[in-house]
């Protein structure tokens, strides 16, 4: 490739590996990338696909043991591979800058923001301290930080995650680099903030005329913000194309599958989610042929023995596949789920009434923190048997605390939970333990939820033992049945949790939750720790089991698409309050609360044509001192004086659809709630 057409960065045949003590990981294998001025190249792939390693290779910052094995990286025609460290240093942060995933740990905790932003300016531009400060101020203003002069003296911990990521961006852009590598820049942020940051990056890229390499696992982010996309799988690029072309006319079966299993708001709930069988190959010992062959529906013998080269099929569209497909999968091809049977029982199986949880005193008091945290402030809802109630909200809104109170892991400060007619906070000891059978939980991190010292057999047997159910033989039989249900072979019984992949672990956790034949399962972020391709497997399984056993789910997630797919009814939480409750359609199609609407607007849809929507500004305030009146008012575009003075009460908009807002997006029903 010639340097021209505004080509800034050209990566060709890049291979990088990491030497371990006894083995070597073939992390990046023959990657070609091309970045043009003013353009965003999206690099997408699941975890472990080598995206980050590619970015780090370009920066010359591979971790210890890492090395570039082959290939070339040219910055405006200048070869970077093999460049002496002293010269590489002049490029880093100056001509190529990078921002990383976690803004919480990416800033030096003991230096002020000002110092950190000024550092590259002084280093590369030879600015004086005063000049650097001026420039830092300018940069902070540029990335949209209010009162930048005050922020200069702040320390990172005083800033919210979104602000920190803005600081990171300011720092990266302070020398106006030619190339910006953004490695999962928003993964650690809430969805509303994610949208803000991505927009900022996009605007700045245009303003500064940079080329941006946007590394992400999220097809939605790619669809919205990238001009061109390269898809990575197991260390190699499998397909590259302009964004629109990739989403509408992808050729690689992996690209096709990846897009298919990315959940959308428009996903038909009655159909199963598309999922990719198996798991990515072990890069310690990669397969000889196409690395996707083992999971590919179109694979032939050739695929397993011969690796397809990356070749241009059309100008600007390259592909590495022997058996290309054509365009996206038809959603209708996925089979339908078994319908959830209507249960005969009337009345809710779970009734949450005015739950409040405040932390304070106790352990915090010992540390000198007398302030109390109002984690959950008066939440009420009910779930019908066999239904799924979804709870959404940004991190820190009290979702998890609520989940713990529902399963009686934490006592509420006030209010009550009634499950199957039993008031949990009135039950004690044996009675409570017996009652727990009906109420199980799935945790976000299945590895954390499985005792690392226990074999799977013991883990699955534990519910029976804890409840004193059955003889050893009966327990074993039941366990085998459970394994069959979650699709795991019986041989797993002898193994330990760390030997499994995340998806397999979540299956085990689900099997355990099912063991006692519960009526209700509370799933707290059941798939957020999983990769997209595995995520849909677990969600499908959950749905299937619900249908089979008539389970009632409470699904808690920050991911609105997951809840959209799973839930019949949805509650939206904000700062400990349930601001809107309604049927799934009510919430997703007819939101009344501005917050709900904002959340929905922030979701990056994996569709390049989705277009722009209203976004919520700023970030959630501290739960230590929630705003008076309506807690959302500080971020609400519709807020007025009344919102600060008066706390809005829930009002009905549709049957079963209520929202607490003074100035809702829709007119409420006239009926006034009593009591």
């Amino acid at each position, binding site marked *: 490739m010639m340097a021209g057409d505004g080509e800034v960065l050209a990566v060709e045949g890049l291979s990088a590996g990491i030497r371990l*003590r006894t083995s070597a990981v073939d992390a990046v294998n023959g990657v070609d990338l091309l970045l043009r001025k003013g353009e965003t190249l999206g690099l997408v792939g699941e975890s472990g696909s080598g995206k980050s390693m590619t970015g780090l290779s370009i920066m010359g910052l591979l971790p210890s043991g890492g090395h570039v094995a082959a290939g070339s990286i040219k910055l405006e025609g200048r070869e970077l591979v093999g460049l002496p460290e002293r010269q590489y240093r002049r490029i880093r942060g100056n001509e190529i800058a990078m921002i990383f995933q976690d803004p919480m740990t990416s800033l030096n905790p003991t230096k002020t923001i000002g110092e950190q932003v000024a550092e590259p300016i002084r280093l590369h531009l030879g600015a004086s301290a005063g000049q650097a400060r001026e420039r830092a101020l300018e940069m902070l203003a540029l990335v949209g930080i209010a009162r930048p002069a005050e922020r200069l003296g702040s320390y990172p911990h005083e800033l919210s995650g979104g602000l920190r990521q803005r600081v990171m961006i300011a720092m990266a852009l302070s020398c106006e680099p030619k190339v910006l590598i953004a490695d999962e820049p928003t993964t650690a942020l809430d969805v509303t903030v994610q949208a803000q940051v991505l927009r900022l990056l996009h605007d700045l890229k245009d303003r500064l005329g940079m080329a941006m390499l946007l590394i992400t696992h999220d097809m939605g982010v790619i669809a919205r913000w990238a001009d061109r996309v390269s898809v990575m799988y197991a260390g190699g690029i499998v397909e590259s194309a302009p964004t629109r072309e990739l989403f509408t006319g992808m050729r690689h079966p992996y690209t096709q599958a990846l897009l298919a299993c990315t959940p959308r708001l428009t996903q038909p709930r009655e159909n199963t989610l598309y999922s990719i069988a198996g798991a990515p190959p072990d890069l310690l010992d990669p397969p000889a042929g196409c690395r996707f062959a083992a999971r590919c529906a179109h694979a032939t013998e050739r695929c397993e023995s011969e690796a397809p080269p990356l070749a241009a099929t059309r100008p600007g569209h390259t592909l590495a596949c022997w058996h290309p497909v054509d365009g996206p999968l038809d959603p209708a091809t996925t089979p339908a789920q078994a319908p959830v049977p209507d249960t005969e029982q009337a009345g809710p199986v779970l009734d949450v009434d005015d739950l409040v949880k405040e932390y304070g005193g*106790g352990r915090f008091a010992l540390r000198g923190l007398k302030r109390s945290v109002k984690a959950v402030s008066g939440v009420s809802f009910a779930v019908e048997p066999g239904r799924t109630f979804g709870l959404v909200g940004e991190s820190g809104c009290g979702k998890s605390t609520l989940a713990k109170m529902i399963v009686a892991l934490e006592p509420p400060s006030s209010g009550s939970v009634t499950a199957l007619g039993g008031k949990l906070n009135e039950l004690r000891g044996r009675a409570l333990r017996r009652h*727990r059978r009906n109420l199980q939980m799935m945790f976000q991190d299945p*590895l954390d939820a*499985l005792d*690392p010292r226990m074999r799977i057999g013991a883990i699955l047997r*534990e519910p029976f033992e804890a409840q004193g159910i059955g003889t050893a033989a009966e327990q074993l039989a039941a366990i085998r049945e459970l394994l069959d249900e979650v699709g795991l072979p019986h041989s797993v019984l002898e193994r330990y949790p760390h030997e499994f992949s995340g998806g397999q672990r979540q299956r085990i956790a689900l099997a*355990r939750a099912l063991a006692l034949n519960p009526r209700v399962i509370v799933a707290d972020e059941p798939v957020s720790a999983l990769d997209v391709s595995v995520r849909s497997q677990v969600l499908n399984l959950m749905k299937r089991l619900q249908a089979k056993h008539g389970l009632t789910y409470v699904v808690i997630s920050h991911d609105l698409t997951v809840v959209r797919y799973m839930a019949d009814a949805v509650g939206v939480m904000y700062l400990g309050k349930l601001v809107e409750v309604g049927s799934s359609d009510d919430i997703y199609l007819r939101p009344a609360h501005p917050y709900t609407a904002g959340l929905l607007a922030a979701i990056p849809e994996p569709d390049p044509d989705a277009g722009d929507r209203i976004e919520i500004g700023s970030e959630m305030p501290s739960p230590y001192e929630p705003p008076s009146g309506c807690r959302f008012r500080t971020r609400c575009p519709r807020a007025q004086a009344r919102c600060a003075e008066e706390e809005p009460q829930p009002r009905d908009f549709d049957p079963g659809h209520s929202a607490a807002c003074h100035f809702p997006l829709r007119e409420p029903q006239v009926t006034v709630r009593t009591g």
Partner: protein
Amino acid sequence: MTETATARPVPELTSGWRLAVRSFAQNRLAVLGVGIIVALVLFCFAGPHLYVTEQITVDPVSSLLPPDAAHPLGTDAQGFDVLGRIMRGGQASLQIGLFAALIATAIGTLYGTVAGLAGGVVDGVMMRVVDTLLSIPFLFIVLIAATRFSSTVLSLSLILGAFSWLAPARLVRAEVLSLRSRGFVAAATVMGATKLRIITRHLIPNALGVVIVNITFQVADAIIAVSLLGFLGFGLNYPDVEWGTQLSEGVSYLFEGAWWLIYPVGGCLVLVVMAFNFVGDALRDSIDVRLRRR
């Protein structure tokens, strides 16, 4: 990245302990440490059966003989064969080290577990007690206590154990606190497990790693401490001996050129302490589950 880059699609059959053993075995220092410990234990406890020497009856006439064929490491002031003496002294030093470590760990584990489980005010008070005792220099209080006891293997173990349970107590408490917040404990609670069951099936097995690691360090520390006591004149008395006392006696003859009274036993002392430290370090690395997750 929550998933490792090398997720195994087909799980191999390895147990947690076996994995720990394997990663432990990959640590050359650890293997060396175990080797040294085994060798020294054999040397001290089995050695006297192979290399039989008189260690009870003194032989004033053959005192302070330099090494020769009959006495590979010479003799000491009482005419005891030094090689045999090191074995005998090593028995006591190792025994005291181990007993003291076990006593300290037992007390510490119990205390830390109770504090960690109780929480709240009880925990606060219990931890202030630990803070208080920790702020008193260990050696000072042990020496003061030693002025009032006649030194035996048991009394020294008790004294050392009685004042060194603080670190394990803190460790275990911290571990219990962190384990309590782990998902699998919550899962067990949700499935209706009793407190007792959670403690015995989850907390204790998981805290065991920390406790075992602690024991090895504790042994190393106790061996050093008892050698200090011996050196300062509070060690074991005839017919018993430990390495610190041996060194202390040897110092008197340093000028006589009686190097064989100092260097062999000093070397053994450093070796065994070092070996326990090696093993402790490696165990900590290999048992630490978090490392495996990364």
